[in-house]
């Protein structure tokens, strides 16, 4: 490992610095924008993300020889981090584009809104690259604090405020618990560095200084914080309310970007810190995670069944997708890691796409309920087609990408003999068909309440196709299957 000192590290930190610069620039620009309908700040944020993306790709070329450890081992720059940063930039850009079209948001608060979005992206970047317990906690808190504000951004809506309040309450408890777990871990090993922890833990376990029970408690507490971010059972309770109350673009953002960042943290923490055989023998946290994963998908799916609000339905569905993703991480295998990364890419497109349709329909009909999707196939045929592609992809029906993603996950699980988990996962796919199909039923099998057709601009369709085309082709075309080979932890 090539350690860089603080001064040397700054150069490799350019993407993060660019985000900070543009977040500040957005606030300053907002002061000078007189016209309230102007979208200048949004465009400036997009430009900032563009620069960030370029910077990420440049830093990627510097790690061709191997990963770098920046700021004396606080964060790491490796392919894994680069993958997540690209994913997060794309998700943030999509969120800003959704917000441009969303009519929910308060025009006067555009500046803060975009600055916060860039800030939360920064926090997620750090979540994906932290290798020190302290950094892990700080990055998590950065993301949480900004997310609370974003969730409560609809100042006129009591539900939005309720969402923010619930989010804070849960978040505070979860991060407090996690901090305790981290401190236990620090106490056991005397270091905050993940690599060193993974070296020392077997030693202290072997020496009898630390009992398996103590380690289990510590890991369980840490899982509370991570589980809260990826909305896994039993730390998922906040998410339906928050997702329902928050502005739709933020809901989309939380369900994709926040979850992806949570998984980045989860994977780095467990893959690099706890893969040692000795530790695995002492604490069978793989089984613990398998149970959490099974519960997460089952509870998410069962709760989604009766939902009438599409946004809330998608919130529960994204909980269950967290469960599917978690399956891949249960075994700490390279196949599992590859499957999770592949699924995250697929999930990014299909889930954001589905939320974009929710934004569009909410704009036109003013409602997020399933009723407002009635007869969509005749009122807006192209949007209806896009939505059914997203929903069937989420269900995991071929030829859509979601199927290939799930297939990779299930293969990873079955390859380690966890048939019971694969069964639960697949039965959940069948259950999920039922609630996704309720939206499709409304769109295709029912007649519209009004005959007036929705009209969307060409740019709307262009953005929609950005999500539809990958959802159709990522799985069928043999382009993305090999990328994860280079990503190791």
């Amino acid at each position, binding site marked *: 490992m090539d350690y860089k000192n603080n001064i040397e590290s700054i150069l490799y930190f350019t993407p993060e610095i660019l985000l900070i610069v543009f977040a500040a620039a957005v606030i300053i620009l907002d002061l000078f924008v007189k016209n309230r309908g102007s979208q200048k700040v949004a465009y400036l944020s997009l430009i900032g993300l563009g620069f960030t993306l370029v910077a990420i790709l440049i830093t990627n070329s510097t790690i061709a020889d191997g990963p770098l450890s920046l700021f004396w081992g606080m964060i790491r720059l490796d392919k894994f981090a680069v993958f997540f940063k690209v994913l997060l930039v794309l998700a943030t850009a999509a969120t800003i584009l959704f917000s441009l079209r969303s009519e929910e948001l308060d025009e006067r608060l555009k500046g803060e809104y975009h600055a916060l979005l860039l800030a939360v992206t920064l926090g997620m970047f750090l979540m994906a690259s932290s290798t020190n317990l302290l950094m892990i906690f700080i990055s998590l808190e950065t993301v949480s604090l900004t997310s609370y504000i974003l969730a409560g951004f609809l100042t006129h809506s009591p539900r939005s405020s309720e969402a923010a309040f619930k989010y804070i309450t849960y978040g505070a408890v979860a991060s407090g618990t996690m901090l305790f777990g981290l401190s236990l871990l620090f106490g056991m090993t005397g270091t905050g560095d993940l690599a060193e922890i993974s070296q020392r833990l077997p030693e202290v376990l072997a020496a009898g200084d630390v009992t398996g029970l103590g380690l289990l408690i510590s890991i369980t507490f840490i899982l509370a914080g991570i589980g809260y971010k990826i909305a896994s059972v039993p730390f998922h309770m906040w998410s339906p309310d928050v997702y329902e109350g928050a502005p739709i673009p933020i809901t989309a953002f939380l369900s994709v970007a926040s979850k992806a960042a949570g998984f980045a943290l989860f994977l780095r923490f467990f893959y690099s810190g706890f893969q040692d055989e000795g530790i695995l023998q002492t604490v069978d946290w793989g089984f613990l995670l398998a149970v959490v994963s099974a519960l997460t998908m089952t509870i998410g799916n069962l709760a989604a069944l009766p939902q009438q609000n599409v946004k809330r339905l998608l919130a529960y569905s994204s909980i269950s997708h967290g469960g599917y993703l978690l399956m891949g991480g249960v075994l700490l295998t390279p196949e599992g890691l590859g499957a999770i990364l592949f699924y995250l890419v697929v999930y990014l497109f299909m889930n954001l796409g589905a939320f974009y349709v929710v934004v569009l329909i909410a704009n036109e009909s003013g409602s997020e309920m399933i009723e407002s999707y009635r007869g969509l196939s005749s009122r807006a045929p192209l949007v209806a087609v896009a939505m059914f592609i997203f929903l*069937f992809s989420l269900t995991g*029906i*071929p*030829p859509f990408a979601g*199927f290939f993603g799930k*297939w990779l996950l*299930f*293969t990873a699980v*079955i*390859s380690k003999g966890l*048939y019971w988990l*694969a*069964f639960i996962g*697949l*039965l959940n*796919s*069948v259950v999920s*068909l*039922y609630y996704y*199909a309720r939206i499709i*039923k409304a769109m*295709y*099998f029912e007649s519209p309440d009004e005959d007036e057709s929705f009209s969307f601009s060409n740019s709307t369709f262009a953005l929609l196709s950005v999500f539809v085309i990958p959802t159709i082709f990522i799985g069928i075309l*043999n382009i993305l*299957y*090999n990328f994860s*080979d280079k990503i190791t932890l």
Partner: protein
Amino acid sequence: MLLSLMIFVPLLGMVVVLLLPRESEELIKRVTLLFTFIPLILAVYLFIAYDRSSISSQYMVNISWIEKFNINYHVGIDGLSVTLILLTALLGPICVIASWRNIEKGIKAYMALFLMLETGMLGFFAALDLFLFYVFFELTLLPMYFLIGVWGGPRREYAAIKFFLYTLFGSVLMLVAMIAVYLTSGDPGSRTFDIPTLITLASTEGHALNDLNFQIWVFLGFFIGFAVKVPIFPFHTWLPDAHVEAPTAISVILAGVLLKMGTYGLVRINMAMFPLGLDRFTNGSDFWGYSLALLGFINIVYGSFCALAQTDFKKLVAYSSIGHMGFVILGLAARNDTGVSGAILQMFNHGVISAMLFLLVGVLYDRAHHREINGFGGLGNKMPIYTGITTLAFMASLGLPGLSGFVGEALALLGAYAKYKTLTILSTIGIVIGAAYFLWTLQRVFLGALNPDYEDIPEINGREILTLVPLGILTIVLGVFPHIVIDMFSVSVTELTKVMGTFEANL
């Protein structure tokens, strides 16, 4: 290439149809007809050009698809698949013609989905890669769901989702089994989804795929997946709903082809790849084989009794389908050349006959707008041609010697008799009940005093006759010369029974 062309021509047709303007309905129908006619020509060519004496798959294409997991686009035909491909390709244009007048809304979407469905079915029968096989299998679900759900009858939403959920439930179990097979097929790097390779590996002594317990579990996974599709009791309850609600042409496809996908899968995967799952349970006891035969028997008798109780014409035909598919299961359970040949022949014949029956029900429904068997009477005088064709179809279906239905059922029973005497004898009850419900229906609908409501009921028209005539000719020709079809697959069947270790030179 020819085979791939045939599989993807309908998909190309779908793209063309989607690009046509919504208003030009006639053009859309004609284009669809053209794009279903090309596969028919190709299928007939393949059927004729197929080398009947060779055991290996022909017209093979094997291209790498997802390299990392050794998934290939591998298609090819043997005697069994070419028979069913011909059936599929034949029913394609017939269904388009049958949909010509009675699909009122959204003809463009209907035809596009229909073309997608055809690609799924053709690809399924040609696939020689397990992954590809699964993808094509699932590819038929989407269009079917919409075709039933949008264009179906009053309870279409319920029927559509029920169909989808049942089939998906079955196919996820299949997916688990498929992944298990893949992972067991070798070390990382040499794993494969290739069906011929897997069959060889699974019969190699000492290979992990050859393990008895493994084969039994995997057999069960695939079996449930296919059993839902066939459908085998107790997974059959989606079928009457789907049939009753689906539009005529879709019922035809459902009974004619989709049910065959289940039995085809049983032959192609379960029996050829995992014969141990069915055979040699412990010390030669034939528990699983007997269970399968028992399921076939239940299908025959239960389906027939249910059909007898129906007053809805379409539901009657739907339950009779369950009964007739029972013969296929019974024949397969016998695992000898006669039984398996009978089963495969019955698959083809049932496809033709049930297609006719559903088309005939559709003709009547289009005129009377109901299907209540007791609501008709004396139609024989008003619709002599229709009555004639219906009688032919009924006779073929109830197994009258000289018509195609008889040969398949007789062979299946003959094969089964060698192994499961009691069950086979009991199964013949199904034939008797079959005769009962068809003849009784004939009497109630066509004979007796004319129901005054139908004084002016129009005779079957030229377009409808056009859809029925080719099928009618087939039932007569194959009743007299069944060897036209049997010759196609007799070599493949021999090969199959050799793999299963149940080969008996007796056909």
